[in-house]
């Protein structure tokens, strides 16, 4: 298992869990959850500073102390133009060319505006960014994102923060089958560790979580639970599960059973 790594752009990782940093009960619990998850990448954001507070600096200091790589997002952006400017600010502030690209098209579902997403992905890729696009499970959009320069895709399982688990297993399986060599990360919509195990069993390369951990009753324990589920699901995928059957098949050998009628 120790050699089972995943490479995202030029970085090879042992952990297949990427963890969001928002909505934890406290900064201390966030730091503890990151450690408990064993993750090597956390997502971060940029926001206007409210009033005279300097909360941003304290948060950034905490993340640097934990010592994990950051993946800045463009959360909340509604146009390609906003997302591009946010990505450029993030590259300077966080000193990384990685960007989790979100262009939101609809408020109730937080569904990506896939047209703006592809436009922004192309512009940012051309500008040297390594783009992690938050997208739907649409196969054609995935093709367009790869054409635009993305080398990783992050389809949703369900709307952000919904905790519903996999809404369309067929579409996620189709994506996996269609792009066998592209790192695919399920981003958004998972609620329970079993959801993460399921997508890993499908052959997904990694999982990005936030709300499922941060809003759990015990975020630190849930971070650990997801880490175990992801490891189990990944091992299950690599071990090649048996093919389901419609009818029963005895697991104990028939030959030699007692009381069998001799012909």
């Amino acid at each position, binding site marked *: 298992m120790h050699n089972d790594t995943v490479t995202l752009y030029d970085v090879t990782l042992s952990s297949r869990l990427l963890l*969001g*940093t*928002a*909505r*934890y009960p406290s900064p201390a619990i*966030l730091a503890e959850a990151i450690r408990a998850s064993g993750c090597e990448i956390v*997502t*971060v*954001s*940029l*926001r*206007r*500073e409210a009033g005279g507070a*300097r*909360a*941003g*600096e304290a*948060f*950034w200091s905490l*993340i640097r102390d934990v010592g994990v790589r950051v993946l*800045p*997002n463009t*959360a909340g952006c509604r146009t390609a*133009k*906003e997302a*591009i*400017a*946010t990505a*450029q*600010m*993030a590259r*300077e*502030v*966080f000193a990384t060319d990685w960007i989790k690209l979100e262009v939101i098209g609809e408020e109730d579902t937080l569904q990506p505006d896939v047209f703006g997403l592809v436009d922004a992905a192309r512009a940012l890729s051309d500008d040297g960014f390594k783009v992690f696009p938050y997208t739907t499970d649409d196969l054609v959009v995935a093709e367009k994102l790869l054409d635009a320069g993305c080398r990783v895709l992050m389809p949703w399982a369900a709307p*952000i*923060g919904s905790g519903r688990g996999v809404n369309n297993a067929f579409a996620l399986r189709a994506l996996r089958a269609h792009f066998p060599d592209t790192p695919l990360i399920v981003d958004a919509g998972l609620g329970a560790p079993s959801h993460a195990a399921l997508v890993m069993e499908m052959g997904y390369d990694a999982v990005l979580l*936030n*709300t499922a951990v941060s809003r759990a009753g015990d975020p630190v324990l849930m971070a650990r639970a997801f880490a175990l589920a992801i490891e189990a699901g990944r091992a299950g995928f690599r071990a090649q599960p048996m093919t389901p059957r419609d009818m029963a098949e005895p697991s104990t050998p028939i030959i030699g059973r007692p009381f069998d009628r001799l012909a």
Partner: protein
Amino acid sequence: MSATTLQMLLDELGYDEKTVGTALNQEFVRARDRAETPLREGDAVEIVTPRQGG
């Protein structure tokens, strides 16, 4: 506000330039260009800092 450049505005507001990102009218402004970026009436200035995100 009496600032006439983006850098002067940041100084006036007391920001540490190393941990903020800036944009003017939805266009990114690099840290090294702030001192030469004039501000005009009606400009939309964005000043952002690291924050929790999903």
